[in-house]
């Protein structure tokens, strides 16, 4: 009786898809193998950017999808990570082995400091407060001379972690994929743990959660800081991957894009978020950049997703799954899974 059984009889009675773990492993192996089949730098680059984005998106899944704390300002923390790590390597001459963890630490601290006052707000107020916060940081990035502002900061150290040189396209791909996978594993662990349950409790019924003994303010601050440190990690990786950053990259459009990726993915789902992130990073690249039309497409996407598909990719998959189960099983699948199968 091991993890195998638990995985093959998940708490929701859907049995059409093969055990999710198998499918997951297959997907991960495919992702790892891609550079062996695809030599085209163009595609490798897009996928690498997807993994970099995914790191930030996964944190947001926990914060927004599970704990239900909306943030329209996460681009600020991506920017913090990019500038801290970039500048640390340039000005202080430290290696990425120091600067990247430093960036994450700064992301955590700033996030935690802001979380306590800001997360006392809910709903529209929280949305606007985080939006304003993001814009404030955007202006700071733009105006500070040390960041180079909109003109940018060229010559950032490339993706070299001590002896590990990841500057080649394949190296960068595998390196960022590894980071994204590690992040996904951490997030998955949190989701399946008691912390995850408490976060979802806070997200679905905050008053009841408080009365049940959950220190909501502390939980929210902790998960916010967790997500901002991941955003900072994402920013740091981005900076060293492209070796040139400009404050233009870290504004509201990025914040909104991150939220879109979470929502289109199905809000609570890590897999859905991954699919949405890859799709929404690659598609613009494939279409040669949408140019002016990108806003139109993202906007329309947002509208349609929220009007009709509030479950996102994961919800869609779940619906399809349930439909297949319903159609294939003649009798009502009535199986309780109390302590016996766990």
């Amino acid at each position, binding site marked *: 009786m091991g993890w195998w059984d638990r995985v093959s009889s998940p*708490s*929701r*009675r859907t049995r059409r898809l093969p055990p999710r773990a198998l499918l997951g492993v297959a997907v991960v192996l495919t992702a790892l193998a891609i550079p062996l089949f695809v030599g085209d730098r163009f595609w490798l680059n897009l996928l690498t950017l997807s993994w970099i984005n995914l790191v930030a998106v996964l944190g947001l899944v926990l914060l927004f999808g599970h704990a239900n704390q909306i943030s329209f300002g996460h681009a600020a923390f991506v920017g913090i990570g990019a500038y801290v790590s970039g500048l640390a390597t340039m000005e202080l001459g430290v290696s990425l082995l120091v600067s990247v963890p430093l960036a994450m630490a700064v992301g955590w601290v700033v996030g935690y400091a802001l979380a306590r006052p800001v997360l006392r707000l809910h709903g529209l107020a929280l949305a606007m407060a985080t939006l304003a916060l993001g814009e404030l940081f955007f202006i700071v990035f733009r105006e500070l001379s040390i960041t180079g502002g909109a003109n940018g900061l060229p010559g950032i150290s490339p993706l070299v972690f001590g002896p590990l040189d990841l500057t080649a396209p394949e190296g960068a791909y595998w390196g960022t994929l590894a980071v994204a996978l590690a992040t996904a594993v*951490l*997030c998955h*662990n*949190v989701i399946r*743990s*008691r*912390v*995850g*349950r*408490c976060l*979802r*409790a806070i*997200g*679905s*019924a905050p*008053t*009841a*959660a*408080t*009365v*049940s*003994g*959950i*220190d*909501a303010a*502390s*939980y929210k601050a*902790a*998960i916010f800081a*967790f997500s901002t440190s991941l955003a900072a990690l994402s920013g740091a990786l981005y900076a060293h991957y492209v070796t040139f950053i400009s404050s233009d990259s870290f504004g509201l459009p990025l914040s909104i894009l991150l939220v879109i990726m979470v929502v289109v993915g199905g809000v*609570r789902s890590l897999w859905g978020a991954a699919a949405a992130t890859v799709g929404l990073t690659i598609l613009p690249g494939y279409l040669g950049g949408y140019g002016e039309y990108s806003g139109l497409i993202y906007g329309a996407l947002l509208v349609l997703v929220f009007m009709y598909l509030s479950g996102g990719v994961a919800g869609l998959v779940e619906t399809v799954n349930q439909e297949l189960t319903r159609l294939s099983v003649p009798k009502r699948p009535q199986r*309780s*899974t*109390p*302590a016996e199968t*766990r």
Partner: protein
Amino acid sequence: MTEALEVRGLTVRFGGLEALGGVSFAVADGAITALIGPNGAGKTTCLNVLSGLQKPTAGAVRYRGRDVTALAPHRRQYLGRTFQIVAPFDGMTVEENIQVGIEARGRIGLGRAALRVGRRRRERRSRERAAALIERMNLAPVASRLVETLPLGHQRLVEFGRALAQDPELLLLDEAASGLSGGEMEELAGQVLRCRDEGRTVVLIEHNMRFVTRLADHLLVLDRGNLLYDGATEAGLTDPAVKAAYLGSTNGAA
């Protein structure tokens, strides 16, 4: 008879409205107390103050001699509560809902959770304790169902179980029988009596007078923020002032 809960001069004002005006009472240890009154009498407000969700404008709440008036809700480990409009944790199963009640307290442990430190042991213990409670609430057949898919009666039981999961000395129930069928009400009454047998103190807000007479030995009647009656249940329900308060309002129960 020792006093578990003591409330003195409790006043709650919102803007221009006075929800509670200088209410004082005591609840005996191990007793079942019913808090009744017409709609808008301030009953839920009272419970909110007792659970720490509402800060009183004036007055004090003492639990076993300790002043808990300003204590944050999540720190009231002695207390468990259900809500008038049932508030289970949607998106989670019955089992997970109960688990939250068990696991909520203590350090967050984000790092430990992310790294799966000690996870197997903790999960097993959490599930075992949850299973016991689910068994007790007769919810075993639906333990793995998402709580929002259950009918109201089951949801109220889940909420009850979640409150019980904190092993509370004091249980606050806000219209826990509201919307339940006769059989479900019986079930609930049985659960409440069992709590009393375990030595827990219960305060329940109720509109259903049969429920009240069946369970409560102590009656508190609120009307428009004032305490109208404080004493034995039977006498209270036949008290003329109490009757007048109910008949005078649009809600004429009893």
